[in-house]
C-alpha cells in the first residue's frame, strides 16, 4: 500500500489559531430576539451552527431546515404575508441557489434578510468554494439585494440590527456577509 501523499496545505490549514471567544453568534441571537424574528430558515452551516442551535432551542422562533436555500426565499415571503418576520441563514454557495427565487422578493417588494457566512475568500483551502464565494456580492447586487459586510466580531450585531431595520422598515431585500475571517479557518484534518 502506498503512503498517503503528505499535503502541506492541508496540514497548515488544520492548525487551529489561538482565537479569543467572540460570542458574536450569541449577540446575533439577541438581535433576532429583540427584532421579533419568528422564523429562521437555514441550510445547515458550520459558521452558523451556534446560532442555529440557539434558534432551535427558542420556543418563540420556528427553525425551518431547508433542502436548498431558495426554499427560504419563499418561506420568508409567506411569513411576511402572514405578518411574521423571518431571516435566512446560509453559506455563500447557497446564494447562487437563490437567484431566480429572488424575483419573488423583487416583484412583490418583500422584505428579506439573508445572513451569509462567507467561503472562498480569506484563507480558503478548498478551491471549489471560490467560484461562487467570489461573486456573491455582485450577484446579490444584480438581484437588487442591498449588501453590507461584517469583518470583525464586534461589528456583527450592529450590522445585522441595521440590516433588519432597513429590510422590514422599507420592505427591502438585504444581505449581511459575515466574512470568512470572522468564521475562522476550517479544520480539514482532524
Amino acid at each position, binding site marked *: 500500500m502506498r503512503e498517503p501523499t503528505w499535503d502541506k496545505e492541508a496540514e497548515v490549514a488544520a492548525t487551529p489559531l489561538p482565537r479569543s471567544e467572540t460570542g458574536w453568534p450569541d449577540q446575533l441571537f439577541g438581535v433576532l430576539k429583540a427584532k421579533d424574528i419568528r422564523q429562521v430558515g437555514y441550510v445547515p452551516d458550520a459558521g452558523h451552527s451556534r446560532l442555529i442551535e440557539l434558534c432551535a432551542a427558542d420556543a418563540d422562533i*420556528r427553525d425551518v431546515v431547508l433542502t436548498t436555500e431558495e426554499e427560504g426565499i419563499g*418561506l420568508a415571503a409567506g411569513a*411576511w*404575508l402572514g*405578518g411574521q418576520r423571518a431571516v435566512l441563514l446560509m453559506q455563500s454557495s447557497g446564494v447562487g441557489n437563490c437567484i*431566480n427565487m429572488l424575483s419573488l422578493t423583487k416583484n*412583490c417588494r418583500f422584505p428579506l434578510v439573508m445572513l451569509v457566512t462567507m467561503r472562498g475568500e480569506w484563507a480558503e483551502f478548498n478551491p471549489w468554494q471560490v467560484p461562487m464565494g467570489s461573486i456573491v456580492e455582485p450577484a446579490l447586487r444584480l438581484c437588487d439585494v442591498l449588501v453590507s459586510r461584517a469583518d470583525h466580531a464586534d461589528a456583527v450585531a450592529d450590522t445585522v440590527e441595521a440590516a433588519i431595520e432597513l429590510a422590514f422598515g422599507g420592505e427591502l431585500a438585504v444581505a449581511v456577509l459575515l466574512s470568512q475571517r470572522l468564521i475562522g479557518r476550517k479544520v480539514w484534518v482532524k
Partner: protein
Amino acid sequence: MLDRRTAITALLAHRSRDLAIITGLGSATWDVASVGDHDRNFYLWGAMGGAAMVGLGLALARPDLRTAVVTGDGEMLMGLGSLATVGVQRPANLAIIVLDNGVYGETGMQPSHTRHAVDLAATARACGIDLVLDVAEPDELQRLAALLPGFDRTLFARVRITPDEPPRVLPTRDGVELKLRFRRAVGADRGEAS
C-alpha cells in the same frame, strides 16, 4: 381523470372565510382565478418551485388561518425538496393540492416526470405527510372539498386532471398589489408601524 375547472370550482366555490390560497405559476393561477378573484388569494406568476414554501411560511405564521397551496405537477417537481421541508414542519393548517395533468401545459404540453414513474402522492407520503389523497374521481373530489374547511393536519392531494387548456383567466400580475391586499385581508399590515 377530472376536468381542471370543474375540479377547482368544486374545491373553492364555497371556500371558508379562513382559507388563504397560494397558487403556483401558470395554469394553477388561471384555474384559481377562474373561480373568482379573492383578496386572500396570492398568485405566483413566476418563482417556479416556490409555491409550497410560500404556503409553509404563511401557515407557520398564521395558525389561525388555513393555507392551501394550489399548483401544478411541473411547479411541484421543481420544488420537490420543499415537500421534504414541509414533511419536517407538518403544520396542521397547510394543504398542498397538486393539479396533475402529466404535462407542462404552458410550454407546449411536453410530458412531465409524472407521466413516467414519478408519483407525487407517494413522494408526499415518503416525506412524512400522512394525510394524502389521490383524487381521480368525482366522489374523491367531493371528499377533498369536504376536508378543506376543517382539516387538522398537513394535507397533500394529487388531483388527476385531463391535459387541456381552458381559456386563461388572468388575475393582476402586480406583485406589490397582490402582497398588500393579501396582508390587509388577513390583518398582517397592523403592528408593523413601530
